[in-house]
Structure formats: C-alpha cells, structure tokens
C-alpha cells in the first residue's frame, strides 16, 4: 500500500496499530503477574499439602482440593440449569417466538446479563436461601445448590445470546429445504437448524460454563463458605467454598508476600488457566468451523 501519508496521519495510524496489540499485551501481563506472585507457592508449600483436603490457612493448611471440588460442584449445578434453559430459550427466541416477542425477550435477557452479581447474591441471602432452607428442610440455606441456582441464572444470558446468534446465522434456505421435504417445524429445528448451528451452540455452552466458574460475588455470598471436600452428591445441599470466593474473602486480610498471599495468587493462576483452556477451545471451534464454511463457499 503506497499512500502518501502526512506525518499526522502516519502517527495516528501507528498509534492505532499499537493499540491493536493491546489485548495480547494484557493477557501476557496478567499471566506474568499471576506467575510472579503465585509460583513461589510451589517452593513454600509442599505439594502434598497443596493437594490435601484441608484448607485452614491460619494453621498453615493450604489444601486446595476442597476449593476445587467446591467450584466444580457449584459450576456443575449451574451448568445443569443454564445449558437446557439457555439453549431452550435461545431456540424459542430464534425459531418460535413471533417477532414482537423476540424484540422484548432479547433486551430482557441482556438485562439479566447486566444485573450486578452482587445484587443476585444479596437476594440470595435475603430471599432465596431462607426459602430453600424451609422448602428442603436444611440446617442452612447457604449451600452449593443455592449458589448453583443463582449461577445458572448468571450464565444463562451468555448461553442464550451466543446460541441465539448461532441459530440465527443458519441460512434460511436450510430450513426452507427441510420444510419443503415435509418435515415439521419441530423436526426442522432438531434435525437441521440445531445441528447446523452446533459449533456456535457448543461455544455458547463453554463460555457459559466459563462464566460460571469465574463468578465470585454471588457464590461468596450464598454458598456458606465452608471449605469441605465434596465427596457425595449430597454435598450439593451443604455449604461449600469455591476458588473464586476464597480469593475474594481472604485476600483482603493477608500480608503481601506471605505464604497465604502466594497461595491465593496460585489459585488465581489455576482459575486463569482454566478460563484460558475454556476460551481457547471455544475459539478453536469457532475458527475451525468458520474456515471450513469459507472453504465450502469459495
């Protein structure tokens, strides 16, 4: 490209190009600082302690297994809610709802995505957990299950909006062809539209789950904060503590540079790597299908 650029335009263009790389710079910076503050853990805490089942930092027990299991059980519960409801709602909005209904539903779901998680946590404490305690006759309403319910709600908008986009992107001709062959609307959705959009729907599910793993405030407020290893499905109805909640609850009280401080960063590193894995996989799906689609179309 040979354009005669004035020096002003040259500078602007340069600056824009530099900012273009900022996302990479920040991901690297975040990774670097988590490593810097988190890696000393491996020198300070024996692996056998780190991967034990006791988290009691005051006495030097830094077993992260209960926190991992806490995150896992709450996220699993949330996924069981968010996936069917998210995809169901996406299908309803994209395929079934009349136009005016769609115009109402989409902003409403977006609005749910915009509700601060601390507000949901607040209602979880005041309304949902007392209700569940009475309903299920539990000693406390602050359980993994309560967390899962709210977290499911938080993950739903992510799932809905990405899955809906994917369904919307399926060419109209696919549907028309199926309907012309005598398929019902329902069969068309299940056998044609949904399979055609499957990579987008899969991405939606992954990013929704990613959102749930990383959620902090809600789970800190409603899951009871008991770092106990979940060993049976019954743990769903008892208090747990997630990795995110542990960091949020304890970082404020630790001394910078202490072992506890390093361990909390180490947990942050684990969370970062999980979200990295989820998102790289999700974007690999997107890129792969896109290039395949481009090959077919060209």
């Amino acid at each position, binding site marked *: 490209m040979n354009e005669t650029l004035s020096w002003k335009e040259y500078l602007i263009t340069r600056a824009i190009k530099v900012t273009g790389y900022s996302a990479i710079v920040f991901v690297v910076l975040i990774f670097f600082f988590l490593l810097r503050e988190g890696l000393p853990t491996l020198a300070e805490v024996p692996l056998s302690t780190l991967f034990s089942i006791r988290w009691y930092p005051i006495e030097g027990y830094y077993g992260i297994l209960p926190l991992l299991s806490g995150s896992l059980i709450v996220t699993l519960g949330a996924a069981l809610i968010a996936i069917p409801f998210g995809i169901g709602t996406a299908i309803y909005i994209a395929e079934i709802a009349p136009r005016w209904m769609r115009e109402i539903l989409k902003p409403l779901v977006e609005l749910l995505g915009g509700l*601060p998680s601390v507000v949901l946590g607040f209602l979880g404490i005041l309304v949902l957990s007392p209700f569940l305690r009475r309903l299920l006759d539990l000693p406390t309403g602050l359980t993994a299950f309560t967390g899962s319910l709210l977290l499911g709600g938080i993950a739903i908008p992510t799932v*809905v909006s990405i899955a809906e986009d994917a369904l919307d992107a399926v060419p109209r001709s696919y549907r028309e062809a199926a309907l012309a062959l005598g398929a019902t609307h329902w069969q068309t959705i299940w056998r044609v539209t949904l399979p055609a959009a499957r990579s987008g729907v899969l991405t939606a599910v992954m990013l929704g789950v990613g959102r749930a793993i990383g959620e902090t405030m809600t789970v800190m407020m409603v899951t009871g904060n008991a770092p106990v290893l979940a060993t049976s499905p019954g743990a769903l109805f008892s208090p747990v503590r997630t990795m995110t909640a542990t*960091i949020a609850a304890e970082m404020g009280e630790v001394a910078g540079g202490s072992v506890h401080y390093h361990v909390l960063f180490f947990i942050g590193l684990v969370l970062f790597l999980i979200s990295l894995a989820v998102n790289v996989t999700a974007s690999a799906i997107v890129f792969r299908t896109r290039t395949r689609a481009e090959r077919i179309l060209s």
Partner: protein
Amino acid sequence: MRKRIPLLRNRHLVQRLGFSLLTLMAALTVLPIIGVVLFIIKEGLPAISWEFLTAMPREGMRAGGILPAIVGTLYLTLGTAIFSVPLGVAAAIYLAEYAPENRLTRLIRIAIINLAGIPSVVYGLFGLGLFVLFLRFGTSILSASLTLSIMTLPVIISAAEEALRAVPQAFRTVSISLGATRWQTIRRIVLPQAMPGIITGIILGLERAAGETAPILFTGAAFFLPRLPHTPFDATMALPYHLFVISTQVPEMPFQIQYGTALVLIVFVLSMNLIATIIRSRARARRQW
C-alpha cells in the same frame, strides 16, 4: 412406512409438546428477571429519600445516606471510561480497518476472547499485583479504574469492531476512489456511521464495570470512608461493594437500607442499559443503508 398416518399425527403432537416446553423454558428464564427487578423496586423504594441519596452514612452505616458509594461508583465508571474507551475504540479500528488476515490477527482475537473470559476476581488479583503494589498506585480509584478498564476492554473492542464492520464496504471504496486516505475515510465516513453502535458498546461495557465488585475488592474499594475521595489516589466506597458490605459484614443492618442500596445500584446499571438500547434502536431506525 406402514404407520404413516399415526406417525404423522404423532409428529404434530410432539411438535406441540416441544413448543410448549420451550415456551415454558423461555418464560422461566425471563419471568424471574422481571420478578427480581420489581421486587427490588418494591422493597427499596421506601428507603429512597433526598437524604438517602445525598447524605453520608451514620451510625456504622445503619442510618443516613449512601452518597460516598454513589459518588465512588460514578468516579470509577468515569475513570474506567477514560482508559478503556480510547484504547478499545482504537483497537477496534485496527481490527476492522487495518488488520490483515494472518496468524497475528487471529492471536489478537483469541486474546480478546480470553480477556472476556478471565474471572473478575483474577482481574482483581492482577490489579493488586500490577497497579497497587508494583506501580505503587496503592488502593485507589486509579488502580481500581485501570483494573476495570482492562476488564471492560474486550466488551468495547468487540462491540466497536462489529459496529465498524457493519458500515458497508462500498462507502470505503467510494471514499478512497475520491482521493481520501484510509484514515480520512475512517474519520469522515466510517466512524460517524458506526458511532451509535460504538457508543452502545461502550455503555454496555461501562455498565458491567459499574456493577462489578470482585475487581475492586483489593484495588480501590473502601469498607467505609467518612469523607468523599479527593484525588485519584484515594480509595473509595462503591455501590456494589457497599451492598456486599452491608448485606454480609454489618450485623443488624436495616433491610430497608440494603434494599435501597440495591435499588440505587440497579437503577444506575439498568438506566445505562436502557440508554444503550435506545441509542441502538434509534440509530437503526435512522440508518441510511
């Protein structure tokens, strides 16, 4: 094939059941949202008064107003905008208008997706490590705003890029053919056309920043401050953190103040959402292409 007729009838029954199920699911997704908002309005409205909005907290935050939290959230939102808007829009311009389709660009896109997916509490850790400790900004509005900016960046970049890409390619070709440089084309034609979409994206990004708690927990949020912050190096109270504090950390907190704070927070956040929605739909109606 033998069972053609029953099968046909069956198909339609399945369809009707399936549609009912999906409709029910959508209703179960959406109705609680409306319920939550209405409930908070109903419970929180009695708490709202001029004093509540404009006075300092008293009696260990159990009485008085929430002014420092409101002001703090305004400051944080503004601070976030100052850093994330220019950076995010410029990055979006790069991706939409300049970036070649190559490995590096793909890497940038993956990085953006990753930034969007990093847990908010990890942003908090990063802000603590980089801004508070390493750069010695301390627990301050500056540190918290910077942390929130980086978290907001992917939202703004994605929305702005989408808005830029929606501007028809033909405008660019015509502008170039009339002797415009690439930047002149962007500034005079593409940016103005993409502006409503970009602003919508910015507001949605800032909305998220305004409602976040975890990233500011250890970068700038104060449990309680007897006065308003004076400089960017002061810590600040903020609405979401305040709601967290008064609903978990302060015993015998009057419900009314809790609900009132929640109401102010969601009004703040949802009005941003509403403005974004209005800008978007008005721009769509006025669009000439």
